[in-house]
């Protein structure tokens, strides 16, 4: 009994070293993973696919950070893009103007960090400028988060949402009213105060020619920092205080939680990481920063991810960020609807009648295996069915679906489902092939299904919200679904044997 108390006391206290180690070890492993990803993956994909992979990472940072306010603390913020833009513009202006004033032009600085001789593989000087600028951008965004957090002292629900919306729009308008950018050193030297104030951030035309430092490595290194921070925060006393505010603000106060202070903290944390995401975006190849990046459309993209993933779930937000970003790109090819329907069908069948982890693993791994085969061009058998070529992979997916339905003793529904999906997808495809152009008298309207991808995307979101209003993972984390840990606690509870 006494030793139990001591054990528990020890587990609560924990020396600072193990606590630091538990945070640092996963972080170092993840950053190492990011470096390896950059090394192996970056070489074998084209610029388009690399761009999508970076977009996924940026979406993860944005979603996981917004989750701290909307998910953990239960405050409804719809101005996240404001923090994103603040971080992006601040960091972009720093790298652009610092590089220009020191090196004469705003280009990538590849000078090695030769002073640090024992580490020859360290990133070059320019990359450190980028990281410094990103952190500064994050800090300025965090300052903005503090200012936006202050009104949330009194406001709840819709009212707070309006304040945050206003913040994003203020950012957008201020950026539109900024001065034009300086494109060379001379104009920078000759500039008067009137050219510097308001700051030369490119006005409504956007801020261009920022050195392109963002790589897969930096994106996923920042993702790693964000994920580890969000996870550690959720496990900490601060995180519990945030969750208690979401659950019951009055009761949280009664526990001694300074509700005001913690709400502001949530905003500051979220804004910092949104600022980092903005910095990554600003330095991404092919990006022009525009005032619209602070607008509410981008905020809503992030909110959709958080809601779809499940409020407060880190893994849910990550999963939804990956799914939605990839899907928006993937649907550019309308034939992908076919696969999408089958994926959803498989997931749906596997998740009935209860969340079945093992089936999902089987389906997930077989889908990955099949997609890899396809990418490598293996088993490329195809034969005509109705009007189009059906490949072996599509057949395998359909078979998988039927097998699962049989295992579920729900054959009829399974067959009907497959038949329905196939019929609908084939009909759409057949129509698209047969009538590429719709004629109304003399006018011809080209019918490009790819143009309607956002409609399909929106329909999918609607159906997810109807069938799973709590989001993909609800309030849980993905590992809570593992069979052995169904009732595992989110915090480390001491093992106390019952008497």
């Amino acid at each position: 009994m006494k030793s139990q108390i001591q054990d528990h006391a020890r587990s609560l206290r924990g020396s600072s070293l193990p606590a630091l180690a538990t945070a640092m070890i996963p972080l170092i492993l993840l950053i190492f993973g990011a470096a390896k990803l950059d090394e192996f993956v970056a070489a074998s994909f084209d610029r388009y696919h690399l761009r999508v992979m970076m977009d996924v990472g940026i979406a993860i940072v944005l979603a996981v950070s917004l989750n701290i306010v909307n998910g953990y603390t239960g405050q409804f913020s719809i101005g996240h893009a404001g923090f994103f833009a603040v971080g992006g513009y601040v960091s972009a202006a720093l790298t652009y103007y610092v590089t220009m004033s020191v090196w004469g032009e705003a280009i990538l600085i590849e000078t090695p960090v030769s002073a640090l001789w024992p580490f020859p593989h360290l990133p070059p000087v320019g990359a450190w400028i980028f990281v410094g600028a990103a952190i500064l951008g994050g800090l300025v965004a965090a300052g903005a988060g503090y200012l936006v957090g202050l009104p949330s002292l009194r406001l709840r629900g819709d009212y707070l949402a309006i304040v945050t919306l206003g913040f994003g729009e203020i950012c957008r308008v201020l950026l539109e009213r900024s001065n034009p950018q300086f494109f060379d050193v001379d104009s920078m030297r000759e500039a008067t105060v009137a050219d510097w104030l308001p700051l030369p951030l490119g006005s409504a035309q956007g801020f261009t020619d920022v050195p392109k430092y963002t790589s897969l490595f930096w994106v996923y290194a920042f993702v790693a920092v964000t994920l580890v921070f969000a996870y550690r925060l959720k496990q900490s006393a601060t995180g519990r205080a945030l969750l208690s505010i979401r659950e019951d603000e009055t009761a949280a106060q009664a526990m001694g939680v300074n509700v005001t202070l913690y709400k502001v903290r949530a905003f500051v944390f979220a804004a910092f990481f949104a600022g980092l995401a903005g910095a990554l975006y600003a330095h991404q190849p092919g990006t022009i920063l525009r005032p619209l990046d602070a607008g509410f459309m981008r905020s809503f993209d992030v909110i959709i991810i958080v809601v779809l993933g499940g409020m407060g779930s880190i893994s849910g937000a990550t999963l939804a960020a990956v799914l939605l970003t990839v899907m928006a790109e993937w649907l550019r090819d309308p034939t992908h609807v076919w696969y999408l329907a089958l994926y959803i069908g498989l997931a749906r069948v596997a998740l009935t009648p209860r969340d079945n982890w093992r089936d999902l693993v089987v389906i997930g791994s077989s889908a990955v295996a099949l997609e890899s085969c396809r990418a490598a061009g293996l088993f490329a058998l195809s034969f005509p069915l109705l009007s189009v070529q059906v490949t072996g992979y599509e057949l395998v997916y359909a078979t998988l679906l039927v097998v699962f339905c049989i295992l579920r003793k729900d054959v009829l529904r399974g067959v009907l489902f497959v038949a329905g999906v196939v019929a609908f997808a084939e009909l759409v495809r057949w129509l698209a092939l047969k009538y590429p152009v719709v004629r109304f008298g003399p006018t011809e309207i080209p019918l490009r299904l790819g143009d309607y991808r956002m409609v399909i995307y929106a329909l999918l979101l609607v159906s997810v919200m109807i069938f799973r209003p709590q989001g993909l993972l609800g309030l849980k984390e993905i590992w809570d679904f593992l069979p052995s840990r169904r009732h595992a606690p989110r915090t480390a509870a001491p093992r106390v044997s019952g008497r």
Partner: protein
Amino acid sequence: MPLLEVRDLCVKYGAIPALHGLSLSVEAGQIVTLIGCNGAGKTTTLRTISGLLRPSGGSITFNGAPIHTLSTDGIVRLGIAQAPEGRGIFGNLTVDENLSLGAFARRDRAGIAKDREWALQLFPRLRERLRQNAGTLSGGEQQMLAIARSVLARPRLLLLDEPSLGLAPQIVQTIFHIIRTIREERGTTILLVEQNAHMALHTADYAYVLEVGRIAMHGPAARLAASDAVRKAYLGVA
């Protein structure tokens, strides 16, 4: 000097007065109960003491120092914990996390571990359900959790708001038994707000009867329980 002294307390909801000049005092180590009908102002009194409502007049002193200008978390830090009305359980957090939040204002980890063990001894049901979401507990268990959670703040004064609300008679007995145990084992002073006058007067040392925002009667609980007025109005005895 009493541990808690409330003097001429006035509280308004907008323009509508809820308390007009309420005074009461709680001696250290006592269980004091505040009984009265619906709308008499019992919960308002507790919420004002804990800083969730601001008084429009009067004063509250705890341990000799005025507290009616402090924030709720400041008051919790001084040693006044409460189990709020309607239990205020964090339904989507585990029982264990709820208990940790009870000790939120404390920094002495060894002391928290010890108190946690003690609270789980008081409520063995909670030990069985440590990893369950608090929202899945039964009403009685939630009330137990609310009390256990407030005890973990190691308060000098514990405010309990209607711990018997909506519970089966047998569980009410258990809860009141535990309230007495907390006072006996910890010496915690308890201010108990109740509609169940019978159980409250049976448990408390001293009682105040509240009628529409004023103290109508007060005295040792046993004496009030025997008085005709209280027996008629609150104990349902003709």
